[in-house]
């Protein structure tokens, strides 16, 4: 087995695939890239058992063969090379020899057959959307997903496809984001929960990409195909919470405010908040928003007043400043609206401007009950 490939081209692909590989693996074979050569096509795969990603590379070869090459060693070596052709030759003594302009390097390889096979999707449904839209959907939601091992469903992003729209939801039970596209639809109704790791990988690869992504899915797995790459992952098993039920329907108190101004005030005031609760207090009366925080233990205190536009009863509500900061940071609009009903009900944060046609973002945040 022998092939010739451009060093930078190979490195670029391997760096993307390397994201799949865990730092420590129970199965040593997973520390490798799988090289599957079929004449001019080299398919490189990486896997952590949950997620398998592979890319097809054009190489110069007239051989076939399958080997597993140590990922870290290979990546470290490739990083040092300037652009040049590299020749990979599999030797008899279980090593693969790489020849560069500078010299020769031998790496021990494992038999490719040991590498776990990616699952085949049986009877998948499919939907196609532009890479950048998917990347945006992931970016808008993934920060709100939880880390609670006891509620694994909430550690992922909920994909809800229908002929009317595509909806992406993430929540950690304190905050919730619902991102909806009515300009992209699916032929059938489908729902599945994607784990965070493959989504983070996809987000990185697809940001700004104009290529189409084909999403195929069944009850247990999903496959994302784009350009020369495929990502197959296991879905999170379980029923996603009925998030619609927690979105308050009647929210008579509506605050509109410049996002940046609000965000910087929250950030500043939050410095003075209690270090464990990060609690800040919003007091809204008339056209004035009063943001305050206090850390009784250290006698630290801050208070800011902002002008806002407000409709509703005077109210006082407490929030975790981290949640508000994350959410406000994640939006891109100039102005935002915060709708509220009661101090123990979720506040609804939405952008007022800056959305694409067919794009919809709803963020919910549960308050902190102030013990006044």
């Amino acid at each position, binding site marked *: 087995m022998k092939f010739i490939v451009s060093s930078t081209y190979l490195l670029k692909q391997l760096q993307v695939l390397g994201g799949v590989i865990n730092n420590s693996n129970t199965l040593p074979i997973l520390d490798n890239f799988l090289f599957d050569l079929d004449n001019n096509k080299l398919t490189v795969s990486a896997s952590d058992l949950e997620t398998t990603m592979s890319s097809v590379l054009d190489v110069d070869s007239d051989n076939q063969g399958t080997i597993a090459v140590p990922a870290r060693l290979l990546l470290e070596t490739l990083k040092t090379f300037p652009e040049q052709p590299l020749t990979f030759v599999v030797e008899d003594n279980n090593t693969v020899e790489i020849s560069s302009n500078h010299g020769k390097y031998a790496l021990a390889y494992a038999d490719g057959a040991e590498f776990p096979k990616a699952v085949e999707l049986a009877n998948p449904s499919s939907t196609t959307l532009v890479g950048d839209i998917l990347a945006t959907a992931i970016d808008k939601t993934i920060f709100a997903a939880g880390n609670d091992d006891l509620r694994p469903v909430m550690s992922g992003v909920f994909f809800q496809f229908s002929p009317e729209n595509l909806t992406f939801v993430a929540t950690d039970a304190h905050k919730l984001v619902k991102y909806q596209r009515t300009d992209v639809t699916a032929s059938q109704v489908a729902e599945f929960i994607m784990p965070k790791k493959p989504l983070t990988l996809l987000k990185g690869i697809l940001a700004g990409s104009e290529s189409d992504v084909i999403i195929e899915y069944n009850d247990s797995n999903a496959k994302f195909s784009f350009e020369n790459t495929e990502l197959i992952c296991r879905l999170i098993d379980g029923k996603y919470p009925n998030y619609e039920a927690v979105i308050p329907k009647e929210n008579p108190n509506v605050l509109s405010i410049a996002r940046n101004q609000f965000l910087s005030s929250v950030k500043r005031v939050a410095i003075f908040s209690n270090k464990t609760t990060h*609690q800040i207090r919003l007091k809204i009366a008339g056209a004035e928003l009063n943001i305050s925080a206090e850390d009784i233990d250290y006698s630290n205190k801050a208070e800011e007043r902002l002008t806002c536009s407000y409709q509703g009863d005077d109210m006082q509500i407490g929030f975790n400043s981290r949640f508000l900061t994350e959410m406000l940071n994640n939006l891109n609009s100039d102005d935002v609206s915060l709708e509220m009903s009661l101090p123990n009900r979720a506040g609804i944060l939405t952008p007022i401007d800056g959305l694409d046609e067919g794009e919809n973002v709803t963020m919910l945040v549960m308050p*902190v009950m102030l013990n*006044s």
Partner: protein
Amino acid sequence: MPNDFPLRKIIHVDMDAFYASVEQLDNPDLRGKPIAVGGSSKRGVVAAASYEARKYGVRSAMSSVLAQRNCPELIFVKPRFERYKEISHQIRNIFYEYTDLVEPLSLDEAYLDVTVNKKGNPSASLIAKEIRQKIYDTIGLNASAGISINKFIAKVASDVNKPNGQKTVNPEEISQFLEELDIRKFYGVGKVTAEKMYKLGIFTGKDLKQKTLEFLEGNFGKNGSYYYNVVRGIHTSEVKPHRIPKSVGAERTFNENLSSEIFMLERLDHIAEELEKRLKKANIAGKTVTLKIKYSDFTLNTRSKTLAYYISSKSLILETAKELLYQEKLQNSVRLLGISLANLNTEKKEKTTDKESISVQLKFEF
């Protein structure tokens, strides 16, 4: 009487027909006549009756219509709580001349711990006599008193020689006193408990004493051990000069019975507003909201919900009360609605050493 606790000297002072007596004091025309404090309307209730009226069987909490029927000459007087409060305050000041350990139970009742007193008088009986005399001399009202070694016996004893009398239960008499006591006279035994006691063959203190702790706990739960102890003269509760309220509430009886929840919401709004006012005044908040529903047949229904956090604002009280109202179908038309808030943040400070400012991050109810 075997008792490991240091003997205390507790006086329970109870004003005789307090509201009615105040009215008779202020208005000489009413003296010697059967009067009832309370509303005379068809939905009114007697808050207090003078002794003259009691002879006719007029009792407090009786409906005004029934009271009038029992005693056609009955004169109804509108209550003037401000005035009662003022007099109650004067009475309390007399108590303070003897001890600072005064625990008011209501406007007309209080416990006094005179084990150590400002006058250096070793006789609680004489102190009680002096206090009653002083109340009569300075204010002109009669009071009764019970004197013993704990609050429970003092309270029961004050009823023995009522009105205008007092009863001392000395330590050596306690056993007999409690054994002979009708079970209905035990403080803490109401109508319902008394009936239950009867069914279990308990009619007097003696009967109660024969029951084992396990038996009483099995039948009366937590109260079982209370009954077991008090009948043995054991009641260690101290006279607490600053009684911290356990709950704060507000309620309203309606002119017309209400049958639809929609009308009740409006009333709840007012009640919640009143409750908020009271909470603000005392600067407290609570976690448990209780909705009290009294049906037109006087049966009582309470529903409560405990939240994870303290609330004191009208909007949240109302929200929870509404939830409780809709929680279960009403069985009848409603004559009274009340909202109370318990599990107050004042209790917490006493019990736990935690910092009082605990804020709670709420979660979605998935």
